């Protein structure tokens, strides 16, 4: 048998004493390799189904958020929006669109200029997926994904606005890692309920919506959570960013014009 025959080498390896250095290294390497192949094959094959499950859960969460705020959510239409122009992008499938992945992809995202980056994001995707509910051909509810830097984690949530695009129907955070019992209380239903019917801005002005330090005053504020000033500031910043000109501002302007 030729020395190039792999069967020869395989037999040679199996014949080595088990406790020798060569065999120990070879077995370790082969077991690691085989395990890596098994794990990555399973992971790659199952990823699409897992994504689908997560997507279904995300949809269910949005429906639950909207239902909790205003009763029956009804059918929601998903749309991908180009943030810069505020126009819909019908060429992007809203089911598979992943805003987080897009935000990390230089080809599909832009760097936020430092003076506009109040939410501490660094980059944002060119597009975002919003959900609409229409009644008699008019939008009476729009759900916007919002996220931004909290105290020690990124806060992810959904903001639902009514048909005047200036009144909050609901705000719900679904992912955060701020201090349990303090900043993390932004996920509590009791605090989130405060957002209902808050106004975003006065006539034509930039967003004034905010988490107050302490008691809320006026239609633009909600009560702060004691001990969570920085988280509250983060919520204020992310709402103002996403409702401002660099966020969903162009979309909301367009919808306001079309609606009136």
């Amino acid at each position: 048998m030729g020395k190039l025959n792999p069967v020869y080498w395989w037999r040679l390896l199996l014949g080595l004493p088990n406790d020798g250095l060569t065999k120990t290294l070879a077995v370790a390497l082969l077991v690691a390799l085989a395990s890596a192949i098994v794990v990555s094959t399973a992971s790659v094959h199952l990823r699409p189904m897992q994504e689908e499950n997560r997507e279904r859960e995300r949809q269910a969460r949005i429906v639950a958020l909207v239902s909790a705020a205003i009763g029956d959510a009804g059918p929601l239409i998903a749309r991908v929006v180009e943030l810069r122009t505020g126009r819909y992008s019908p060429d992007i499938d809203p089911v598979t669109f992943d805003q987080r992945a897009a935000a990390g992809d230089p080809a599909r995202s832009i760097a936020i200029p430092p003076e506009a980056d109040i939410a501490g994001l660094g980059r944002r995707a060119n597009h975002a997926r919003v959900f609409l509910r229409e009644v008699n051909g008019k939008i009476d509810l729009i759900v916007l994904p919002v996220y931004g830097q909290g105290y020690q984690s990124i806060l992810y949530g959904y903001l639902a606005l009514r048909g005047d695009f200036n009144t909050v129907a609901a705000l719900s955070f679904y992912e955060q890692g701020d201090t349990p019992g303090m900043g993390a209380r932004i996920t509590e239903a009791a605090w989130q309920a405060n957002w209902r019917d808050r106004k975003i801005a006065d006539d034509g002005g930039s967003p004034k919506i905010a988490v107050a330090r302490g008691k809320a005053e006026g239609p633009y504020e909600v009560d702060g959570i004691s001990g969570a000033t920085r988280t509250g500031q983060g919520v204020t910043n992310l709402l103002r960013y996403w409702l401002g000109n660099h966020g969903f501002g162009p979309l909301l302007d367009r919808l306001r014009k079309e609606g009136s």
Partner: protein
Amino acid sequence: MPGPYTKTLMDPLIENNPVTLQILGICSALAVTTSLLTALVMSAALTSVLVVSNGAISLIRNHIPSAIRLIVQITIIASLVIVADEILKAYAFETSKRLSVFVGLIITNCIVLARAESFAMRNPPVPSLLDGLGNGLGYSLILIALGSVRELLGAGTLLAVAVLPTIRQGGWFEPLALMLNPASAFFMLGFLVWIIRTVRRHQVEEPEFRPRTTGSKAG
């Protein structure tokens, strides 16, 4: 007269049950038995991991250097657990979320490593597969028993189907909230061990120490 294969398969069910006799895998047995469904899914996951890991380790048992024996076993077990976890996330998403970390923690479940180290390393593949299946089923038996009783008494349901109409739904049954706490699984496991050891007295262990007052020496 049962053959050796039948004995390998049947022994761990009650006679040599990994949970009630060897007291292994307790952590997950307490954590996932609040409902029958999670208990069933966890049982299926552990049994499949145990069968495949026993088979794979037995296949290569003659070529595992003793210096890296445990690490090789753990690598194989960990890979299988990751695969099981991924499969659950794809096909049983809701249940996998309720099981949370406990599927991943099969890696540290003593039963799997114990069977690999004490059986699969010394026996050919077929008995090893049967041993894995037997021990997996023995674990499953306990989980299913605990899960059924806890869900039935804690929520009045079985597999989320109402069996005992609760007061809240206009029936007569007041759910025992204690049953949904981990502590209740401890009590029930204790009762189960007690019952089994009352019927099968030879399972009762010799005390490690005897009190001095009896005059006999520690045995």
